[in-house]
């Protein structure tokens, strides 16, 4: 089985080169070999490059070891788009949700990044990973509260925690009162919530995406979280108050970038044990502007325009002899349709049980039923 790999090479922002080539799936055994192959294909032997690929959701993800290389290959169907970038470019590649779209939107969001000085301490190569969580709004929240943003990156992986009803103490004008509250009751092993280290059992949930949960039932809060799960921002009052973010005043440093350092260090020891799942938080634009921005992008629905639908039916479709159902010609024509020129990403996703041994006719019917996604 051959995979066609389309490889736009990015030497710089303005100097781009696109290559498309076929690759035998079994021919490549590992990342290193693939890396060398790319260097050969692009005639850039010896140049340090970063590899990235676009996953189903349109996220730019890195390829830097065997694991994520195989992951990338498995997600190629049939096209895999790989982005190659020189490692010493000033602007680091940001792997994040909808990173491709955001880049496309303009460089406004990236401009400050070019001005910033090199960070003094690098825990890892941030550009090799994608962000899964962040602490935000540190400057406006009370010390005892923590606002956590979870990035799901469109995966079907659960957010990985459970909530329950409970009783919370609140200071009111009448004195201390017991009020019903919602608490995290359990973290799923290896789940997103646990891997961030930012949420813990018995943390009280105060807000979901800016909406106060007071007076809402457990089911309501559950539904709110699920509805916001693509970009969930929960404000919690951690049960363990020792790991709170120290106000910035104590660690003054210049530039908007500094909050990342403090935030990162504040929880890095928490998340260290779970790095096996290649998830380490790193700083990206953790300001509220970007948050609102991505909120708008976050639920962009997929619209499939069937190009096969004639603008205004030029022909009368001949019906079958027995007058039975007429399936749309979508599938057949889509197979032949050349990929659109202007688009950023295009792929067809056959159903999972599609095996190469199937006859061409069954393959076609399968493709017909599968999700055809065009962004």
């Amino acid at each position, binding site marked *: 089985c051959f995979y066609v790999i389309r490889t736009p090479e990015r030497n710089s922002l303005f100097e781009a080169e696109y290559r498309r080539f076929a690759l035998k799936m079994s021919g490549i055994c590992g990342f290193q070999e693939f890396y060398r192959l790319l260097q050969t294909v692009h005639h850039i032997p010896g140049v340090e490059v970063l590899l990235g690929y676009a996953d189903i959701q349109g996220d730019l993800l890195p390829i830097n070891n065997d694991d994520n290389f195989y992951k990338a290959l498995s997600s190629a169907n049939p096209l895999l788009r790989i982005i190659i970038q020189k490692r010493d470019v000033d602007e680091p590649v940001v792997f994040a949700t909808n990173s491709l779209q955001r880049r496309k939107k303009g460089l406004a969001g990236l401009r400050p990044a070019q001005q910033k000085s090199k960070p003094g301490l690098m825990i890892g190569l941030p550009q090799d990973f994608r962000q899964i969580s962040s602490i935000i709004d540190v400057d406006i929240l009370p010390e005892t509260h923590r606002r956590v943003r979870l990035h*799901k990156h469109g995966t*079907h992986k*659960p*957010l*990985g*925690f*459970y*909530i*329950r*009803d409970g009783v919370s103490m609140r200071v009111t004008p009448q004195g201390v009162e017991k009020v019903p509250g919602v608490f995290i*009751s*359990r973290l799923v092993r290896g789940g997103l*919530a646990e891997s961030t280290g930012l949420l813990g059992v018995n943390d009280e949930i105060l807000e*979901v995406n*800016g*909406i106060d949960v007071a007076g*809402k*039932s*457990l*089911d*309501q*809060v*559950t*539904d*709110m979280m*699920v*509805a916001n*799960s*693509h970009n969930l921002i929960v404000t919690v009052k951690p049960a363990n108050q020792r790991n709170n973010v120290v106000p910035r005043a104590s660690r003054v440093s210049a530039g908007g970038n500094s909050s990342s350092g403090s935030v990162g260090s504040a929880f890095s020891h928490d998340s260290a044990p779970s790095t096996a799942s290649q998830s380490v938080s790193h700083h990206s634009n953790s300001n509220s502007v970007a948050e*609102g921005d991505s*909120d708008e992008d*976050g*639920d*962009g*629905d*997929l*619209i*499939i*325009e*069937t190009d096969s*639908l*004639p*603008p*205004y*039916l030029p022909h009368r*479709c001949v*019906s079958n002899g027995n*007058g039975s*159902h*007429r*399936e*749309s*010609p*979508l599938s057949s024509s889509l197979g032949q349709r050349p990929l659109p020129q202007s688009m950023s990403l295009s792929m067809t996703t056959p159903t999972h*049980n599609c095996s190469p041994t199937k006859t061409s006719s*069954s393959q076609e019917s399968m493709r017909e*039923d599968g*999700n*055809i*996604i065009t962004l």
Partner: protein
Amino acid sequence: MMKFRFRRQGNDPQREKIKQELFAFNKTVEHGFPHQPCALAFDPQLQLMAIGTKSGAIKIYGSPGVEFTGLHRDAAAVAQIHFLQGQVSLLGHFLDIHVCVCYNVCDVVSSASRVTVLLLLSSCDLLCVGTEGGGIHFLDLPRLSLRDNQSLLLDQVMQSIPEDYRCGKSLGPVESLQEHPKQPGKILIGYSRGLVVLWDLSTRNAEHMFLGKQQLESLVWERSGSSFVSSHSDGGYSVWAVASGNTYTHQPVSSSIPYGPFPCKAINKILWRTIQSGCPVVLYSGGMPRASYGDRHCVTIQQDKQHVTLDFTSRVIDFFTVHTTDPEHDYDDPKALVVLLEEELVVIDLLTTGWPSVPPPYLAPLHSSAITTSCHLDNVPAKLWDRLAAAGNNQGAQPGVRHAHGSWPICGGKNLAPPPRQQELLLTGHEDGTVRFWNVSAVAMTPLYKLSTANVFHTDCDPNDDPLDPTNDPEALQEEEWPPFRKVGCFDPYSDDPRLGIQKISLCKYSCRLVVAGTAGQVIVLGLSDEWSDHTVDVSTVDLLQDREGFTWKGHDRLEPRASPAPFPPGFQPLVLVQALPPASVTSVMLHAEWNLVAFGTSHGFGLFDYHRRTAVLARCTLHPNDSLAMEGPLSRVKSLKKSLRQSFRRIRKSRVSGKKRPIPTPTSKIQEANAALADQEEVAPVQRRIEPRSADDSLSGVVRCLCFADTYLRDGTHHGPTLWAGTNSGSVYAYALEVPGVGTGRGRPGGEGSGCVEAVLGKEIQLMHRAPVVSVCVLDGRGKPLPEPYQASLDLATAPDMTNPHSVLIASEEQLKVFSLPKVGAKTKFKLTAHEGCRVRRVAMVTVCSTAQEDYSETSLVCLTNLGDLHLFNVPALRPQVRYDCIRKEDISGIASCVFTRNGQGFYLISPSEYQRFSLSAKVITEPLCTVELERPLETHIRSLLHTNTSGNTHSSLLETHTLLAVPGGDYNRTWPRCSNHWCNMITFFGSSQDSSSRI
């Protein structure tokens, strides 16, 4: 998000005023039969009937249209109701009250016991309370204060009975109290052991003693007062003569056990009514032979040689006769027998020979088979209405059922409601495959027509199969059967075949085409006909899986269509039967009569059928490859088995506790109950909810939730044409461009026969990112108004849609409302309901609400019922929230699921299996009872006054208000009236929570 918040808060006073003129939430009337009725009363002077329920509601009915409802605050069961004769005063006897009455009596006298019977004297100033301990206490009315030292205790009675009768045993509870019909101061007291005492209240002396030996159940006076009848636990009754002179009577005049000689069940209640022209009529419940018919629910009517045993399908609660109460008149001359059953009200005409039943004009048993779906139509054209009514009348013309509403025996009050402005039709689909058409134009919901779809299929109990069925053979019926049973009533919860159940209904009121879809994937297209017809129904199957491999259907088989022609009565007659394969339950159906198309969806996909040419146009599978559950058949049972087992055990345990006859609420039992409740709470583990986003491989993701036809722009911005939209459980929307010959583009000859086939081409697919189930799809025209129904535009019944400006489509999912532009699908506006409020959309409808201030001003709004039972209204297409109302309790899942909206801003939902609550969102369109009862009050200075409800909601609050007023300790009876609304001042209601009443007594 922030932008949005600010926008919402902008409170324009002008807009607020308009909103007030448009929207108002009222729960208006309750249609149907009260759930769990447990008490019945009738006022012969006012001709009003009252029904009390276990949930504490009291409903009063008079002539059709005269209805009052009161709900007790504490939802305690009503045990007995008594009318204070002629005064529209109602004595509601709640279990709660009688607990507190007893406790108070306990304080005075030391014999603690429960109330068994109440007697209200005709003078209306004294209430006699019979207790389980055998004592009788007297309470002054209307203050319900105990007459001190006047209680009649067992000891007093025991002293005067002969020694040989005493034999050391107690007389038992008081079973019956009856006032002497001619001599007001005398009451007849029946004790359980059989002793009956005629007691003179003024002299406080036992005038006469009847030493019965058989355990007593009930007593009734003969009209003249010269004799009375007692009924007994052995199934017999005795007639006793009341002769002045001797103090003791040992033997009754006559005694009989009608269904003997084998052991019989008790006769619970007996009535003895005299007739001028002949023998008295005896009416009694129970008394059936224990072994053979002990489980039947029967009321017997006997007059001389005539004998009918009315055989009911549910328990007899109580019954009364409507008869002359004029003291000048020497005979009862009963007109009708009214029997309240657990599930319906049956009225028997006693004047007509053969004692036929009279269909009630209200209290329709909606649930004669369980309701599975409903559908509302407003502005029904007279043509359809008359034909339906004619077909319905035809059905009613059965032997044994007299169809004349004019002679309805309960005729109190006057209906003041104006005739309805338009005819409204509510269609209910039932489990047994019937569709019932109800007239809901006015307060009284009346049956119009009933359609059965079972005869399209070949079922096990097909009457045509075995002509030797004895029930079909008139000769066999003639054969002497004992007892002479007659099936009465229409409550029949048993379904022949669960697959016959109706799931979805769609009716075109202009072309009289009806589509009914059911549990086994059957979609039946019906047409209205006024004649009997014998024809075979065309059958087509549509395979929705389209040879997809790897799936096997493990559910029920499809229904087998009847092979031979069947006779179809006038009314809706089936034309085509389409069966979806696999035969999963139909989850949505939509009819477009103008294009002759019907679209249907199941959990596997959807299909489009041209019923004019009898061809399938389209079949599309919506299954996700990972969805294995959908193939298992109707919802896997394995998952919930454990839970349901646990629940059923709990239910059994609970019923064991509550099922006891007359549980005695002692303090210890109360403590036990509280402990049990606590234990129940502890038993439940702390509730946890997993935060797990929806994924594509959720079970049943392929369920087609909604279908929609629209003439709109799908291909490009200049040419519009027929389209079909389908939304699924996993947030996918499919839009098909249809090519319907002769429609739209002027291509093909309009109405031309055989000009080609309908074709469907997939135009768009929308996958909502949040993957929530799509609840509704609606296309809006250039002005943002929903497109008119089929035929409305072409028949000039509605303003033509704006086709010049770009259209848009409103897609409502469980979590969000979103408007997309057409033909290029781009998001225009949205409202994230779940993300903001944490609730999920259950039902969505477009309603047009008229203003109360300006006659011609109306607005189209999107009304949205959530899983929390609240209603949100949004304007369209901007989707700005307008108002929010709490409507249904969030625990009432079946109520939320059954909700149906009308186009003019009203709605219905089930408050019990048998009752619809009607509500209104519109400030203008309100259907509510508007009626008066004229009455005279002997206690006051004979003022003629009105009992009146004018605004909805008042019906409830007024009743409670009066109650509250009466409960004020020491509050003067006369002084309290001005605080009530004028119209209610004559209603005395003794509803009482325990605290209130105890403070009074």
